[in-house]
C-alpha cells in the first residue's frame, strides 16, 4: 500500500513536470474540429509585451516568452489566467476558446499592460 502511494505521488509529480515543461505547448493546445491548433507568440522585452495587441481566432494558443533579465508574471485583468513567475527564457501558454477582449498585465510590474483580442 505504501509503495502504491509512493508510485501515485511520483506519477502526479511527473505529470505536473510535463505540464510545466517549456515547449510542452501542444499538450495544452485545443484543436477545434478538424482545424489544426494555431499558435501566436508574445515576447517580453524591456518590460513590455510585444506585440501589445494580438488578434487571433478562437482556439488559438498564445505563448509568452520572457527575454528580460528579471522575472515577469503574465496575468489577465479578469483573473482568467495567471502564469507562475517567468524567469529569463521561461514560457507560458494559454488557449483562448471564446471570442472577446482579454486585457492582461504583469502582476509584479503592473505598468506593463497589453491585450489579446479573440474573434
Amino acid at each position, binding site marked *: 500500500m505504501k509503495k502504491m502511494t509512493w508510485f501515485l505521488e511520483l506519477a502526479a509529480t511527473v505529470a505536473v513536470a510535463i505540464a510545466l515543461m517549456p515547449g510542452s505547448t501542444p499538450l495544452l493546445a485545443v484543436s477545434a474540429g478538424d482545424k489544426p491548433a494555431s499558435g501566436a507568440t508574445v515576447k517580453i522585452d524591456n518590460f513590455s509585451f510585444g506585440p501589445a495587441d494580438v488578434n487571433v481566432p478562437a482556439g488559438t494558443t498564445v505563448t509568452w516568452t520572457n527575454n528580460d*533579465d528579471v522575472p515577469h508574471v503574465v496575468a489577465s485583468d479578469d483573473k482568467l489566467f495567471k502564469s507562475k513567475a517567468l524567469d529569463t527564457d521561461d514560457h507560458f501558454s494559454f488557449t483562448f476558446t471564446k471570442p472577446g477582449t482579454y486585457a492582461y498585465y504583469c502582476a509584479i510590474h503592473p505598468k506593463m499592460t497589453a491585450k489579446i483580442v479573440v474573434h
Partner: protein
Amino acid sequence: MADFIRDNINKDGIDRRGFLQCMAWAGTGVLYTMHGGILKSLPLAQGAMGGDQMKNMKGADFSFIQISDSHIGFSKEANPDVTATLQVAVDRINSTAAQPDFLLHTGDISQLSKPSEFDTAEQVLKGAKAGKIFYVPGEHDVLTDDGQQYLDRFGKGTKGKGWYSFDHKGAHFIGLVNVVDLKAGGLGSLGSSQLEWLADDVKQLKSSTPVVVFAHIPLWTVYPEWGWGTDDSQQALGYLKRFGSVSVLNGHIHQIMQKVEGNISFHTALSTAFPQPAPGTAPSPGPMKVPADQLRNVLGITHVNFVQGSHSLAVVDSPLAQS
C-alpha cells in the same frame, strides 16, 4: 560635481537641486542630516570619513543599517555572484565602528521566492553583528503562495501581508507592504486595510515622536513610467503630516535618491546585488551592466544615525567598494 551646484545656501558643497541631478552617483556615498525638515547634505569621500562627517555622527542615540535588494538567486551578467556581494555588505556592517542596534532589509531578499534563495539569504545575514533584522517584502519575495512563505520566514507576528510597527528608543518604526495586489496599469499599492491600520497605529503617538517608515517601492513618485512610485502613498503620508520628523526609507530602484517635503524626508538605498539605470536613461529599468571592477562602487548599504531631540537624522550611504 561642481557643474551641478547652482545655489548653495548651506555652504556644504552641494545644493539640493544639484544633488537630485546627480542622484545616481557611483563610487561615492552621501551623508545628510535633517534639521527640522531642512536638509543638509555632504558628499562622502571614498575611504575614511572627514571631520564634517564625524561631527554629524557624534551624539547619536543609536544607529541602524538599511540594506536592500539582495536578489539572491540572480546570476545574470549584471552580477553573477549576488551571494558574494551580500556577504561583502555583511562584512561592511560588521566593520562599522559603532555597532548598529538592528538592520532593516527593504525587500527583494530573493530573486524568485525560491526556498533555497531564502535559505542562502538567511544564512549570510545571520553573520551580521546586529541585534535583529526587520524585513518588508519586495515583489520578488511574494511570487509564490500569495507571499505565505515570506510571512512564515520573515514576517512572523506581522499584520496582513506583512506590515507592522515597533518602537525603539523613543522612535516609532513602521514597516509597510506595497508589493501585493497590484492593479493593472498602476504603481505600488498599500491597500485600504493597511491604510486603516496605519491611521490607527499612529493615532496614539505624540507629534514630537520621530517616525521612520520603510517599504520596498518608493512611497513618493520617482518615475511613474517605470512604476517607481506607490498609488496610495499620499494617503499614508497624510497620516504622518503632523509629526515633526518623518523619514521614509525605500529600496526597489537600486540607486540613491532623496527628496524633502515639509517634515518628511525620503531616501532610497543602493542594492547589494546590481545597479539600475537612472530614470529614463535606458529603455527599461532592468539590471544595469557595469564593468566587473566597478560593480562594488554601485552597490552598498545605508547607515542611519539617530539623534534625539534635535530632529536630526544622519544617513550615510556607503558603496561596498569602500574600505
